[in-house]
């Protein structure tokens, strides 16, 4: 068994950007090996949880897009982040796990080129396309379909946050000055080719092995042409 200390070390080595808070934190399960054997892909249902919301976004090349343009042709793993996030079990966890998913998908014949990763910033003020491109260098493999997105303003961001139920609040100091940090729920969404949310992962649940298992489950469903999510009804 690899120790928590090892994973702290690994984390710090991988992401010096976020190392400040790493030592004292209780690491989320996603940083370590899965403590159980996950259910076999395709043996369980992932009932639809509603339609993935659309919105106006900008990619890291500065190109305006509708989020829906990136939903529907592939299985999508979409996580909300902001690049200044210092909470080891927040955005860094999302990016860490998505990087592992990226690697796992690349080695999986059934999933390779079937999956798109999306990291969508909820800090349009700081996370410019340039900032996201720099951030992406820590995570995105060459040739990988991992989109780093931001929005033009709070006004265009808010409908997206509301659509996904993504809570985020800016933190202010004693003088009422914005500290640059935000409290938020970590949420990563699994979206199928019909643009439906099929799973939601938060800190206690987000792990690359289970995410890849869920991706395989949706791929098996697509290959079989079945309507998943109805099994248990």
């Amino acid at each position, binding site marked *: 068994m690899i120790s928590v200390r090892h994973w702290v070390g690994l984390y710090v080595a991988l992401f010096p950007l976020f190392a400040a808070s790493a030592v004292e934190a209780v690491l*989320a399960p996603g940083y370590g090996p899965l403590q159980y054997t*996950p259910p076999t892909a395709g043996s*369980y249902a992932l009932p639809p949880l509603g339609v993935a919301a659309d919105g106006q976004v900008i990619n890291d090349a500065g190109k305006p897009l509708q989020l829906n343009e990136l939903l529907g042709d592939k299985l999508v793993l979409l996580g909300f982040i902001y690049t200044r996030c210092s909470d080891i079990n927040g955005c860094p966890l999302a990016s860490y796990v998505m990087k592992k998913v990226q690697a796992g998908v690349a080695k999986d014949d059934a999933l390779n080129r079937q999956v798109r990763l999306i990291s969508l910033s909820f800090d349009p003020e700081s996370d410019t396309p340039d900032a996201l491109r720099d951030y992406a260098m820590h995570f995105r493999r060459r040739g990988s379909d991992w989109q780093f997105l931001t929005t033009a303003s709070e006004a265009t961001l808010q409908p997206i946050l509301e659509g996904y139920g993504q809570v985020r609040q800016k933190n202010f100091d004693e003088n009422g000055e914005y500290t640059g940090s935000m409290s938020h729920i970590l949420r990563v969404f699994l979206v199928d080719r019909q643009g439906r949310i099929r799973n939601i992962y938060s*800190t*206690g*649940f987000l792990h690359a092995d289970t995410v890849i298992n869920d991706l395989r489950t949706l791929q098996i469903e697509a290959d079989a042409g079945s309507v998943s999510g109805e099994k248990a009804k």
Partner: protein
Amino acid sequence: MRWILLFTLFVTSAGFADETCMSPYMAKIQGQEDFVYVWTLGVDGVGDEQDKLVTVDVNPKSPNYGKVVSSLSVGGRNEAHHTGLSDDRRYLWASSLDTSKIFIFDIHSDPAKPTLHKEIADFVAVTGGVVGPHTSYALPGRMMITGLSNNRDHGGRTALVEYTNAGDYIVTHWMPTDDNLQGAVKSGEFADGFGYDVRALPRKNIMVTSSFTGWNNYMMNLGALMSDPEAMKAFGNTAVVWDLHARQPKKILDVPGAPLELRCAWGENHDYCFTTTALTSKIWLIFEDDKGEWQAEAVGDIGDATKIPLPVDISIFADDSLLWVNTWNDGMTRLYDISDPHQAKQIYSKKIGEQVNMVSQSWDGKRVYYTSSLLANWDKQAPAGPDLQYLKVYDFDGSELQEKLSIDFLAAKLGAPHQMRFGAYALYGDKTASR
């Protein structure tokens, strides 16, 4: 100064009950809570006679300390029972055992004055016949709701139901029974299909459910029920261990005598949960053994079972060392040393009132909250006075409970108080409320 434990900010996996029943990843009120939200049954002849969400200011530094600062009636009586916080802690889901309505309250816009955000009135129809929504247990972006009954015979066979945080129905998972084990291993005598509470250990991919009784029994007068031998046979005798991710039952464990509340341990390697049995008056441990098998074991007695003390709510300490156990019939709260989870030992007891049901403690264990009501048709009607239907708040110094606050819910014309949840301004970044 208020402290909120935000080592993972608001990142969550599950949230429930008092502060020590939350997920390790949910924002918790580590210090002083500002409010307690009390889901309260309407009582005939008391106030407006309606079920209501009562908000009490419990911050000693507040000028409103000890006062009811909000009372939100929902119209009629529904057998108000349990409540649960959404994973983002912005909404409080309050369920009703008789009408099967679920009321979703907004507690974040103004924590001092909740509002009714949504009412789910078609629970039975959309779930395929599940009756009596009980526990609302937060999972990422959704709620897992336990049922107590069904609309075919109003007995105890029931299901788990999932809703999105927005209040949209997702799916129903019926409990495994003898005639449909759904792949689960029946490890003992029973596979009754009954339900009550639910808890999860995400790191082990385990979900555990317990079992009570159906609408026929919980809506019956308690005296009539106790004198009806056939009805007394219709109580749950099982706990079910589920594959959390797949939502598939794995193993049905015999836990005879109506296992009710489930509380799982906090420690990183503490792979176990506690429950207590209402009819047999025992503490049970549901645990993973050395071989990775989930087992159930009776680990302690609660009072004199022949006197039917009726264990009800329990509350585990944040360090897994102690467990509060309430016994409704004698109005006692009992503290057990569970540092050896296989040998629970009672180390303290105190009479709280004529009847006591729910117990909630602050994260540090220094404040313990009690309410009295169990079920409308089971609650005691006498002796009248401040110890019959109440909210009481105690300080706990590690050895003794000292009463700090008491509200007589009948005298205040509120009703019969049931489940409590804590609220705090700081959860929502409200600087102005920092005192």
